[in-house]
């Protein structure tokens, strides 16, 4: 039965109360607009209050503006490290989730151990272990006539940073992927089986495309968190945002100015990231819109 004729919105001819509907719609729109204006006003007031307080505290905004170019040069490094890390982390997380959901005791054991160990230890310690600890082991190998392995275990700062962030976030994202995969109804798997699809095809063509849509907001969240956590790699002397800000701040004793500048840059980057995430989310939802 086709209901489209009956349910057609905006049927002026047949509706004697058409005018009242129009008035109600106008009121509703006005209310929504007024709310948006009030919300924007609150944001503006908060930003103004923050700026006022900082100016009272003898903060020198011109110094920050003058040196912003130097700090901004670190943005690409921060983005590069974050992008590389989120990519590797995604692969690790998928493997971790498959391991956790696997029927094999070995796969389940390895995945569980990985998540527990990595989530249970601080990221900063992991960075130290990879950057400073691994070369120590590498030295042992080199001493025993295996310089190849020794070299492999001696990573530079960028490599160490990416490895640490990837391994760390991979563990958290394992749980996100696991939950995403499990959120897809059992019927989907059964339907795929019933037409003879194998496990690999079921995963790649039926489960993952649906799971990814579910977890995109969580992955976006992780990416935002990672951009900020990437500031930890500054301790290895990588010239990203935090390192650059820190350097000038110490030189000219302008801590408030430079760290606020760095904070503002991170803030802006995360705002852009959440826009991008929202766009991706809408794009992937296309098939699900009526």
């Amino acid at each position, binding site marked *: *039965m086709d209901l489209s004729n009956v349910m057609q919105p905006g049927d002026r001819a047949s509706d004697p109360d058409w005018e009242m509907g129009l008035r109600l719609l106008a009121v509703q729109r006005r209310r929504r607009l007024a709310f948006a204006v009030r919300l924007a006003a609150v944001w503006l007031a908060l930003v103004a209050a923050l700026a006022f307080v900082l100016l009272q505290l003898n903060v020198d905004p011109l110094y920050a503006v003058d040196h912003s170019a130097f700090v901004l040069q670190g943005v690409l490094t921060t983005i590069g490290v974050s992008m590389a890390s989120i990519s590797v982390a995604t692969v690790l997380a998928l493997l971790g989730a498959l391991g956790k959901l696997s029927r094999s005791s070995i796969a389940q054991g390895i995945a569980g151990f990985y998540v527990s160990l990595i989530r249970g230890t601080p990221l900063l310690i992991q960075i130290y272990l990879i950057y400073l600890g691994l070369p120590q082991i590498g030295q042992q190998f080199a001493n025993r006539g295996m310089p190849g392995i020794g070299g492999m275990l001696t990573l530079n700062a960028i490599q160490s940073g990416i490895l640490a962030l990837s391994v760390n976030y991979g563990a958290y994202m394992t749980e996100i992927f696991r939950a995403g995969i499990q959120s897809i*109804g059992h*019927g*989907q798997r*059964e*339907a*795929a*089986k*019933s*037409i*003879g*699809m*194998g496990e690999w*095809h079921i995963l790649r*063509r*039926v489960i993952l*495309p*649906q799971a990814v*849509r579910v977890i995109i907001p969580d992955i976006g969240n992780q990416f935002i968190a990672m951009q900020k956590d990437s500031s930890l790699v500054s301790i290895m002397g990588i010239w990203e945002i935090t390192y650059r800000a820190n350097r000038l701040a110490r030189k000219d004793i302008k801590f408030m100015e430079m760290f606020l500048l760095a904070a503002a840059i991170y803030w802006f980057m995360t705002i852009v990231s959440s826009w991008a995430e929202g766009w991706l989310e809408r794009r992937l939802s296309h*098939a*699900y*819109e*009526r």
Partner: protein
Amino acid sequence: MPTNDSKPIVQVENLHKWFDLLHVLRGVSFTVDPQEVLVLIGRSGSGKSTLLRCLNMLEEPSAGSITIGPVSVRVEPGKHVDRRQATAIRLQTGMVFQEFNLFPHMTALQNVIEGLVTVKKLPREEAAAIGEKYLDKVGLLPKRDVHPVRLSGGQKQRVAIARSLAMEPKVLLFDEPTSALDPELIGEVLDVMRRLALEGTTMMVVTHEMSFASDVADRVLYLDHGVIVEQGPPTQILKSPQDERTAVFLRSFLESRGD
């Protein structure tokens, strides 16, 4: 209509299924002839859905043997069915689910050709041609590029039927195909099934649609507590059942329907 001298296309012998200690199928044996339409009826929990799901290994049978077309699987108690054997027997069967289970991220056509492309490895154009043929068969060719969310329940179920048909199975299994549908949408699905029956499709249907059973079924099978209590032509089973349990079920069923 089945012919008496034809070799059965489905042969089930002494099939058992336990869920932990719940003995759902208690030694079920039956055969289905080519082009036969078999309707399974029974109370909820009688094992009729489990029986269908065991036939294509969505549930692993606990014991017994199943032969569909050229594929035979014998299940030894306590042993798993080999994965390749399970896939082989699945390819002999098509399954239509109560909840349709269409792939929501794919269009109607993509749903129908998914198995052709990934399992049968057909080139995309060839698969699309076959897919369109079967979408046309269920009357939904105009919806080929529409995602399931924009289809009505009846349309979804018809696409699901096309998806099963496209794999050209020996027997189609229907697990309460109209139970999740609004009453006004049931007819279109039953019409498609009726047409398939007329064309000689071998079908096993679990349903509560007694009028469908009496019109279309060649044989009705009444299941109670995991045992086939009674079977025969629909006129006999539905109008004058021999077994008391069948009679009680039909009476209470018709009363609850109020017709």
